[in-house]
């Protein structure tokens, strides 16, 4: 974890050392990565098929955007309200989905999330429809691109720290146990559904934070943020980076955002490349890049050290 902390600190100097576009791209990676990591709380650590996580990202972003542009409340209030609204939406949609299992859970969530997408797309008077909302005025302290990036980096850091603590807490250990074997969890006295619902509220809160950070980064919101394709993309980021690891989804986000930027410059069919990447992934790295690295380290340690110390924690 030390290298991650070092990288995080080093990134604070990015606005001084790198060009505007690079800093912007880093910002996109951080926001998307935070979103993917919040999804991974449920997918990799909780074993829940959260298929439409992007909807809560959109709820967070739209709440901030609407409160800032349509009310006279200070902009900070709008930014703070985003995650809370996302968590509330998570609680509502989660309580409806949680009674269903696995795939059904995912399917009903896609339908309910798509309702929110339709609201953003069609409620023209409120949301400007598919034009989105642009030029959202931000607080003075966040208006420069350098200071916006610093704020973004700081918030992402705090969120990652909080998520890490949650995953290392009894709540997180129990969540992983539910992922492995919900029936056994019920037999040791764990209220499985309530535990999962709490996890959904926590994960959607962080998705809302990512949504608010998107507003800080772009100054706009679009209905596409709630479209199911984005949810699929962040799902792939989790799988690609390593869904049983902590930082894997951030790595997955970095790879996909860079791929989209670089390959997308040459061809509009960049999703074709993404498809190929996904197929290779399923065949060769079923636990993602960091998952494979983790396995390799385990294997080496087992070959070198005494055999009884082979195992390690699932979340690394």
């Amino acid at each position: 974890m030390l290298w991650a902390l070092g990288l995080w600190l080093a990134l604070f100097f990015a606005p001084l050392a790198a060009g505007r576009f690079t800093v912007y791209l880093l910002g996109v990676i951080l926001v998307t990565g935070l979103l993917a990591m919040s999804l991974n709380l449920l997918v990799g650590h909780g074993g829940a098929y959260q298929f439409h996580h992007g909807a809560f990202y959109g709820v967070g972003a739209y709440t901030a955007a609407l409160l800032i542009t349509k009310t006279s409340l200070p902009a900070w209030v709008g930014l703070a309200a985003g995650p809370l609204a996302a968590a509330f939406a998570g609680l509502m949609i989660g309580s409806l989905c949680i009674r269903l299992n696995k795939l059904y859970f995912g399917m009903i969530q896609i339908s309910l999330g798509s309702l929110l997408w339709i609201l953003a797309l069609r409620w023209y008077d409120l949301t400007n429809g598919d034009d989105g909302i642009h030029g959202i005025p931000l607080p003075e302290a966040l208006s420069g691109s350098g200071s916006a990036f610093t704020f973004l980096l700081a918030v992402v850091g705090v969120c990652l720290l909080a998520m890490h603590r949650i995953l290392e807490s009894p709540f997180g250990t129990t969540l992983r146990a539910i992922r492995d074997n919900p029936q056994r969890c019920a037999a040791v006295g764990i209220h499985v559904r309530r535990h999962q619902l709490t996890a959904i509220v926590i994960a959607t809160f962080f998705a809302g934070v990512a949504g608010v950070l998107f507003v800080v980064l772009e100054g706009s919101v679009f209905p596409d943020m709630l479209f199911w394709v984005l949810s699929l993309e962040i799902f792939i980021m989790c799988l690609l980076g390593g869904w049983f690891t902590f930082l894997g989804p951030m790595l997955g986000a970095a790879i996909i955002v860079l791929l989209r930027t670089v390959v997308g410059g040459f061809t509009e069919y960049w999703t074709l490349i993404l498809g190929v990447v996904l197929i290779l992934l399923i065949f060769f790295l079923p636990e993602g890049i960091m998952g494979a690295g983790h396995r390799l380290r385990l294997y080496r340690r087992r070959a070198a050290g005494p055999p009884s110390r082979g195992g390690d924690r699932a979340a690394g």
Partner: protein
Amino acid sequence: MLQVDGLCKAFGDFQAVNGAWLTVRQGDLVAVIGPNGAGKTTLFNLITGHLQADRGSIRFREQEISRLPAHEICRRGIARSFQIANIFPRLSVFENVQVAVLSAKGLSRHLLHPTRRLVREETEGILERVGLQDRRLDLAGSLSHGDKRILEIAIALGNEPELLILDEPTAGMSPEETAATLALIRRLAREQGLTILFCEHDMEVVFNVATSIMVMQHGSTLVQGPPLQVRADPAVQEAYLGRD
């Protein structure tokens, strides 16, 4: 301690449990025997709330528990192991037991304390008692079949139960593993004062270990009593043990 009366459960047309009764007193080591399909596992699933009974009553410590969900029954003091190795394969052996201990102490939902500093001693104690302390850091999924079954029992112990229910604890074990597991069960009953209810195929095992035996056939209870009485019972000999 546990009193089951007139319990029935049907799956479609098949009457899996049909008027079963059972008495478990404090400190007993009760075995349920019966041929395959006699309804032993269904009976256990009904007691622990993994299935809901159609009719009949299950009373634990004078309270009706037949309508409660599994996690609630567990909190009343009944823990169980399963016939198939039912563990958390991606967690370490230590964490497998720790999850149960945390749940028993009502700590499962704590968000900000690091897990690794909590309930260490209790968890270590249980692992030592069952003899898995050397494997504590291994991933549970990498254990041998026999060790997985032992871990099963260790998870159940993590709940600090008053009544421990073991569903065929020695199924699929080698003769050595079976002997070790039986020794463990006896030791738990004697040293911890645990009340244990288990079912088992192996006749030798049952008559050696149990203080009371309940015989099931076609979903009903044939008889329950001490081993010698059950062995002498003509109906049991007819139905199950076979005439000499």
